[in-house]
């Protein structure tokens, strides 16, 4: 479901709109911790940015499904987090994080990169113009991969990264509870411009994940993966 190559937006979403809220988090982790650390942060964000499935009724009102949650223990970090109980969502995030991790490991990378989670709204345009994607919240997680020499350092890293992630979760929650801009609850015809309705059990806001790897020369190679709405038409 991620990155089938169809574009729904005009220019790349790398440049946020003027009223887009941007938050940056930084973590230093060991190579084998990258995946779990990224999943912990992304899942925590998406926990707050997902609702139950909307069921519209005739009078224009709607009812909302129920979001379940589950605890996840990390294997390489002394840390546990809560995620939405949705296997589809978990798979999508794991796929994105897996690609990011592989890119970080790839040649030319000095272990630095960043993964971005962008929430956007679609604004329908008339033909022949393509729909516009307007980001309203951008989370960037900067990652620095460290190499450790021995088991003792690894053990310390487990604990330290666990503590750092606790701080990140607190930061995320603080941002979420500022109650700043959120898209208006849409009508039935507009729901796909605000929410990702492709999942069967939960409904996150429209989002896309992209990442950048800093190679050893200091230049950045952008790889963007686009997340699509199921009824987007290619022009």
């Amino acid at each position: 479901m991620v990155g089938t190559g169809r574009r729904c937006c005009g220019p790349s979403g790398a440049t946020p709109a003027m009223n887009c809220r941007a938050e940056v988090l930084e973590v230093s982790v060991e190579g084998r911790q990258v995946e779990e650390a990224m999943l912990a942060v992304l899942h925590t964000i998406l926990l707050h940015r997902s609702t139950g499935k909307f069921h519209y009724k005739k009078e224009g009102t709607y009812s909302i499904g129920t979001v379940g949650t589950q605890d996840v223990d990390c294997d390489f970090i002394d840390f546990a987090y809560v995620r939405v109980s949705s296997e589809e969502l978990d798979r999508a995030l794991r796929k994105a994080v897996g690609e990011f991790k592989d890119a970080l490991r790839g040649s030319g990378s000095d272990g630095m990169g960043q993964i971005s989670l962008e929430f956007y709204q679609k604004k329908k345009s008339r033909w022949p113009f393509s729909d516009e994607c307007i980001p309203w919240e951008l989370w960037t997680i900067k990652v620095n991969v460290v190499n450790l020499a021995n088991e003792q350092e690894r053990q310390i890293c487990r604990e330290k990264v666990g503590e750092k992630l606790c701080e990140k979760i607190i930061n995320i929650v603080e941002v979420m509870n500022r109650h700043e801009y959120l898209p208006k609850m849409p009508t039935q015809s507009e729901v796909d411009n605000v929410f990702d309705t492709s999942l069967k059990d939960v409904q996150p806001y429209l989002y896309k994940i992209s990442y950048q790897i800093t190679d050893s020369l200091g230049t950045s190679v952008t790889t963007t993966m686009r997340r699509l709405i199921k009824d987007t038409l290619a022009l």
Partner: protein
Amino acid sequence: MDTDLSSQDRKDLDKFIKFFALKTVQVIVQARLGEKICTRSSSSPTGSDWFNLAIKDIPEVTHEAKKALAGQLPAVGRSMCVEISLKTSEGDSMELEIWCLEMNEKCDKEIKVSYTVYNRLSLLLKSLLAITRVTPAYRLSRKQGHEYVILYRIYFGEVQLSGLGEGFQTVRVGTVGTPVGTITLSCAYRINLAFMSTRAGEDNAAVYPSVEDSQEVCTTSFSTSPPSQLSSSRLSYQPAALGVGSADMGYPVLFAGGLNAAHPHQVLLIGPGKEGGVPPVPNQPAHGTQADQERMCTPLDGVYYSAATPSSSEDTETVSNSSEGKCGSPHDLLETIFIRKVGAFVNKPINQVTMANLDIPFAMFAPKNVELEDNDPMVNPPESPETESPLQGSLHSEGSSGSSTGNTHDDFVMIDFKPAFSKDDILPMDLGTFYREFQNPPQLSSLSIDIGAQSMAEDLDSLPEKLAVHEKNVKEFDAFVETLQ
């Protein structure tokens, strides 16, 4: 204050706040049960899931929460508090966290109750789910069991943070503005996890602060162990995560385990965290050695120091010193409680050891005669070992009993190996010798030097012939190789 609020909105708001309070308690208590929580998402609304979140209701918890609320709602000056504490199998307890649901006077008249307030309360509950996993008590609660349990207590009224010790940290989960006030959810958690508990004769209830203003007090424990096991189980030992950069790590976690009931003090040392972050708690489960009655093992820097039945005053002084010096002075402990551990079979009379009880394994084998320190093999090791080991001597069945007395200066007392029920007169060799000789299979003949040398010489001689044969069949070999490709 609420004249602008319609009666329906007011009713809805009260209902939202009430159920929010109940769900808050459920989330907090369930997060401290020590188990992983998992609830399913449902695309079809069931109508019974408040705030569109699947949060199970434990009936007992709901009952206690309702009892505490007693029909009231959180309001200004009246907060709902959930206190999380730890209780050890020895009966000592310590407050870990206080979760407070408070209301202040700051009103948001413009906000829509049935929509915005409801959704924001839902968001706040999600934040609570996340935050309950990042405070230190979460990891403690996941490891609860025989050694300690986590308890909760709900009270309504003024928030009491004095039981959290000095320097407690606060994390704000979030706020939701409503037309009647702003709801705030926060957590104050203990940083300094050190406490001194006293044994019988002292009132342990003093550790637990009294709740004067609360209307309802309840204490319920969730434990993975049945109550009968709690009284007999011991604190298990958790080694400290010391090592490189201990200054950066904050302070290690030490549980001085296994002190028996005779000791007047028992100390749990858990140091403060660094940079205001959560204190480090080692990942190791409680797998540390169960200290027995006689020794107190305190591994610092990975070295175990053992004390043989330490006198109680000395012991506690040692441990309390270490609590002041935090992790920085393992040598203090070393000086105070270290005794020279006497090795097995060492020829050392008991009265020469200065400390209290001596604990020599196999003491009965040690010669009883008094020796000066000059003759002590630990101090002056014997210069040259015997030419052949006593074992080898007995292998050849040469008066093996002669080695049994051993050299009085040797570190080892040799005992002739006489297997039970063996008799010398029936078999040409005794059972022990037989066993020693045939314990291992004989060496392969091809590995012995003489035979090996012979076969090698033969091989070398036959090489030219073999090469000639192979050269004739070159084409066959090539064809075979090609079939493999």
